[in-house]
């Protein structure tokens, strides 16, 4: 059992020394995640104390009562007092944890006041965000203002997904036929990572997302930009790309201000303003876009975007067009 202790010391040091990733939920931001984190801190401290006591007693018993010549085992069957006390202590500890837990559950289920409303629709394998107050539609990257609660309405489309931004809030499932809600608030500007947490098929691993928090004025600017329709391209290559797009991609994609109005796939009106694409899986750059359009299924298994067999020139044109959609 000594091994256990050594191991956990190692893991403990690992906790301190290993990189804290962009998606961890130990260093949190914003009031919702912090409320959960404060409960965790108490629970974890108690768990560590119980762990040390129980494993310590176990090691003590193993060393102290190990067989030695002449040793006789005491033949007792139990001790009612000890047993009652040892039943009551954990019951009391748990009761102590139960009270703040239930209070937090109740508090967090309240709808926050003055919130920004966003409807999230989860699809295999990307996220659609509709800013119902502003008439803005975007995908995978959710822009929010700092210091204001964001109230999400979660709508299921195909299978169950789960929306999660660990540094801001825990997860809530997105279920076909049900409407769920959750809320969070970012206090500091920045980029927050998240991803789908409920196994949803081939590219569950590739269904990622970002929340990008701006100071309120910057957020207003972003909204204003997003409300604009797309402008027609002036560059000839991009114009050729637009033509190809309108023949090939409009069954699924929409671009405001054009004939492309389908909603099964992400709205691309301001595609070039996003830093990632395809479920926040790839950085939004020329090389990645080419690879993606050339054969989507090769890089994202199970994606519903087919390979249209475009030539390299056609791909270049479409990429050029997409990059005008700022």
């Amino acid at each position, binding site marked *: 059992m000594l091994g256990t202790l050594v191991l956990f010391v190692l893991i403990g040091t690992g906790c301190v020394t290993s990189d804290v990733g*962009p998606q961890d939920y130990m260093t949190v931001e914003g009031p919702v995640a912090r409320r959960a984190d404060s409960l965790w801190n108490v629970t974890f401290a108690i768990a560590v104390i119980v762990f040390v006591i129980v494993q310590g007693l176990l090691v003590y018993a*193993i060393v102290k009562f*190990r067989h030695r010549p002449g040793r006789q085992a005491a033949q007792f069957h*139990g001790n009612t007092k000890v047993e009652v006390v040892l039943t009551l202590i954990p019951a009391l500890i748990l009761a102590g944890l139960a009270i703040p837990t239930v209070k937090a559950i109740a508090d967090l289920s309240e709808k926050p006041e003055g919130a920004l409303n966003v409807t999230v629709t989860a699809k295999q394998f990307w996220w659609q965000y509709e800013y119902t107050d502003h008439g803005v539609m975007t995908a995978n990257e959710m822009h929010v203002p700092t210091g204001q609660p964001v109230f999400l309405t979660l709508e299921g489309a195909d299978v169950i997904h789960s929306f999660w931004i660990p540094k801001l809030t825990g997860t809530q499932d997105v279920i076909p036929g049900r409407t769920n809600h959750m809320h969070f608030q970012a206090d500091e500007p920045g980029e927050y990572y998240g991803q789908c947490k409920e196994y949803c098929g081939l590219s569950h691993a590739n269904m990622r997302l970002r929340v990008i928090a701006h100071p309120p004025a910057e957020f207003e600017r972003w909204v204003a930009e997003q409300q604009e329709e797309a402008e027609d391209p002036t560059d000839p290559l991009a114009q050729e790309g637009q033509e190809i797009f309108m023949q090939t991609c409009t069954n699924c994609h929409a671009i405001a201000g054009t004939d492309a109005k389908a909603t099964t796939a992400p709205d691309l009106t301001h595609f070039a303003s996003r830093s990632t694409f395809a479920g926040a899986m790839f950085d939004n750059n020329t090389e990645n876009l080419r690879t993606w359009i050339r054969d989507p299924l090769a890089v994202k298994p199970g994606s519903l975007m087919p390979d249209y067999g475009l030539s390299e020139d056609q791909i270049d044109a479409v990429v050029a067009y997409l990059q005008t959609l700022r």
Partner: protein
Amino acid sequence: MATAALPQRRRLFSRPSAKTGVVSWLATADHKRIGILYGITAFIFFILGGLEALALRAQLARPNGEVLDADLYNQLFTMHGLTMIFFVIMPMGAAFVNFLLPLMIGARDVAFPRLNALSYWIFLFAGLFMYSSFFLGGAPDGGWFGYAPLSTSLPSHGMDFYAIGLQIAGIASLVASVNFIVTIINMRAPGMTLMRMPVFVWMTLVVQFLVLFAMPVIAVALFELTFDRLFDTNFFNAANGGDPVLWQHLFWVFGHPEVYILILPAMGIVSEIIPVYSRKPLFGYAAIVFAGAAIGFMGWGVWAHHMFAVGLGPVAVSAFALSTMFIAVPTGVKIFNWMGTLWQGDLRFPTAMLFALGFVSMFVIGGLSGVTHAIVPHDTQQTDTYWIVAHFHYVLFGGAMFAILGGLYYWWPKFFGHMLREGLGKLNFWLWFIGFNLTFGPHHLLGLNGMPRRIYTYPEGMGWDLWNLVSTVGAFTIALSVVVFLVNVAVSRARREEAVGDPWDARTLEWSIPSPPPEHNFDEIPIVTSRDDWWHRKYLSTPERQPTPVVAGAAEGGDTGHGHIHLPSPSLMPLIAAFGLPVIGYALIYKAFPVAILGALIALLGFFGWVFEPATAEDEH
């Protein structure tokens, strides 16, 4: 000559009567042989499930791994879970129960020996049926809890195999549960009152009631899934008025008791091992028994803690948070009682004891991480991350698998009549212990660092690289430990160190008879006068533990000629009846309905043959 020539009644099948050879195993109704069949089969599935785990860990060792593609990864993680739960830990429990239950309660067999054989064959066919999916277009790939509507929409036949394969496996468990419950209630030796039963028997009783009530729930859910998939019904289809959450409720109403179905036999095994090597009676026997029963009852009231992110509303969530916290109390009681058993004992540490103590130590870790799930606002962070993966491996591997290995080392001499080697055993244990912690300890950190479960790949820069690599190294360490175990089995068989009837100076009735036990178990059914009856026949219950001679009467007990010992006769009918089920399964999946009728006829043939063949073969009269 004239009497010997009396015409035999003609039968469709001649009844097998061989005592050795393949047919004797196919037709056996002896609980000890069925137990061994269960154990070997489950161990083979353990190796398969382990190989699946190694492939998964190889894929995750580095970011952007290219060992497996997404499709194969999803099949393998689904099959790993299904295998370890339904085809390893559950049947390993059945192996111990089969072999030991009659011996521990002083019986000559289980209540329904042929039904027992039926359970085994159905279980075997369910496993083969499920694994055949790998060769028939793809294994189940919807996760072991098969959430609808993903499970109803996945295109390969994998989830059909899931729905029907688990249905068949469930029949095996259900049949066995009735058998074991009747055995425990009706077949105890004179004087073996309920509160004198070994704790392993008590835990078996609780588990079999859980199986009896939980299996019908999953059966309903699986029928609905089968109908949704094969016949386009809409139980879980929200677009046509169904409800995906219905699946989750049904699945977890089964699934949480299932967790206790997996862990309570392990607790029973540990409760047998620790007193023997402490040379003390179990501390707080009654408390351990009642805690086990309490877990059995409370286990029905915590299922929605698997669903805290579903959106059940604050009231339901609070209620399930509370029930989840308080089920930790009876679990804690058991831990304290095992510690109390060690206290002031005379402890020895053969391999079996190391595994039992490893169980206690690891289970504490799994229990503590389990309590954190009840903190709902934070559970929505932990859920579906590697924190959960760490938790359930600490209870199922650190718990159940440690206990199973301990049980194998402890009862091996009773099973096979020879000892396992201690040197290799200790190597086995330490590799197992270190490998286990190296594999699943880092999962805690990965979880807290935001790594979701069931992802076949992850990018660089998430802070997950190091601990994934460590975990993969750990997994291969466990594999090495399993190899050491197999070497130990082979070496111990080759250079047999014969086991005496009671090599550990143990406490319960199975040790009062030779190793391995004779076919009829007990020459005379023992008369039980106390808990740990065998110990008290050896030792006066004084602190000085003076050895006393074996009680008078038992020494003369070799006199078996005065009564006929009724033993179950071999029969092939359970095998035939069980074979009908996978035939029906394949026919449903491929919509070859005449074949389904053929399968049903095979099963019926088996059952009719069974009904019309006498329970005891004629030549035994």
